[in-house]
């Protein structure tokens, strides 16, 4: 499996990574090597095997739908790069 520069560019956009053009070439090579390496899984017969999503043999526990935490917006916002009036601030989204 070989990934070209354009595919990497597309992936970088999906992952919201603003990568410089010269890095894309290098990454295309690295990612192609990695994908070639993992291709060996194609040799394994997995017919009828259920995909394993978790090793924990348990049902997801449930709890009552009640508020158990919160009420301290200032602590929640304490690490925000920019906050005002109890909100996170971002560049203008709607014109």
């Amino acid at each position, binding site marked *: 499996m070989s990934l070209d520069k354009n595919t990497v560019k597309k992936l970088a956009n*999906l*992952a919201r990574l603003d990568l410089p053009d010269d890095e894309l070439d290098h990454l295309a090579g690295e990612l192609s*090597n990695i994908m070639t390496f993992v291709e060996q*899984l194609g040799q394994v017969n997995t017919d009828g095997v259920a995909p394993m999503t978790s*090793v924990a043999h348990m049902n997801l526990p449930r709890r009552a739908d009640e508020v158990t935490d919160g009420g301290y917006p200032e602590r929640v916002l304490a690490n925000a790069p920019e906050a005002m009036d109890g909100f996170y601030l971002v560049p203008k989204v709607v014109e």
Partner: protein
Amino acid sequence: MSELTNLTIAEARAKLAKGEISAVELTEAHILAMEAARDLNAFVTETPEIAMERASEADVALKKGEAGILAGIPLGIKDLFCTEGVRTTASSKILCNFIPPYESTVSSNLKKAGAVMLGKTSLDEFAMGSSNMTSAFGPVISPWKRKSNSNVQLVPGGSSGGSASAVSARIAMGATGTDTGGSIRQPASFCGIVGLKPTYGRCSRWGVVAFASSLDQAGPMTRSVKDAALMLQAMAGHDPKDSTSANVPLPDFAAAMTGDIRGLKVGIPREYRPDGLSPEIQKLWDDGIEMLKAAGAAPVEISLPHTKYALATYYIVAPAECSSNLARYDGVRYGMRVEGKTLDELYAKTRAEGFGREVRRRILIGTYVLSAGYYDAYYTKAQKVRALIAEDFRKAYETVDVILTPTCPSAAFGLGETDDDPVTMWLNDVFTVPASLAGLPGISLPTGLSSEGLPLGLQLLGRPFDEETVLRVAGVLESAADFKATPTGVEI
């Protein structure tokens, strides 16, 4: 090097209980050791004031007879565990200014047990790496040196390299680690210490910066098997805040170390002896088998047929989960921000600037294998092979009680001695990854030295939630191997 820093946790507990030493004395000695060994770069953040405060509290509790199991024991906390009011970086630039408003369950459990936090230990960025070279705060150095050339700086392994280096260099009596594909066991092997990855679900993941959530598990790193048992006792336990935390009884781990392994069946998987395995590692393994045999256990050759597919499986599953987990770093709610004209530009610039090379690479791989059109071919396929790998172990445990393998294919390598190919670096994890995929408990303990005088570890793997047997066998192997070597500058 003071005598106090050479004590094991078990020895220090006895002296503290008898009043022969105080927690303050013990902590001061470790703070001095931490300051003296700054060239190892083992800590991202040192917290001597917190340490002294907790030590004083421990002394009071000890006097009152109300001391917890780790009262007054100075520990390093991997900088992946959120610590209230203390910067937690995951060794990433993107979290360089993050001060958690809460404490992870594991570090909180340790605190409740009276442990003293010396500081936050360095790691590979977001725990992604096997060398500690991907930390945004510079590489961690191992205290060990090669016989032939003491000028070469060696890596401590990773991702819990700061923890391993600190424990090995007698800066901390123990440290927390996390293991996703070998991040506790591999650095433990490289640094000549004990590293225990518990069963998935044994320790809460709440408040631990997530890498690959179906694999991540916290565990202790110490200088003896008994110490690992004691530390695990304090760290483990059911936590409703982690939905994958197992609600199972907590046994007395140290009590499980009875010293008697007569009649136990020890699996020796033939797939862990690939062509080209170094003769040194082969001998280490054979010696370990003989030691267990001499103690009355019976080695049994077993087969784990899907072993050779474990790395490829891991390098689909882990990056997939990583790309999802790390989507949260957006420059809006916490961590660093690089301004942009639009929200999308802010995201993309922040993430490109904040994440290092290895992390970016894994995010891209994860994005690729989860993308439309490739999801089934890669991700679902890997999950199916993962099921087969887990099934291999389940079948093996029908006939054996525990499995013995080498921890790593080699001793520690030097800084900059690896080539740029990520796949070569991943081969470090070839013996540790399968058990991670299956969620099994595993321990690495030092049992010998390489021709260069560097520590080499053996790994014991157990059934799910059977850390007791793992610890019991590890205790016997530890006594038989009688590993006494110490890193440069440490004399016992």
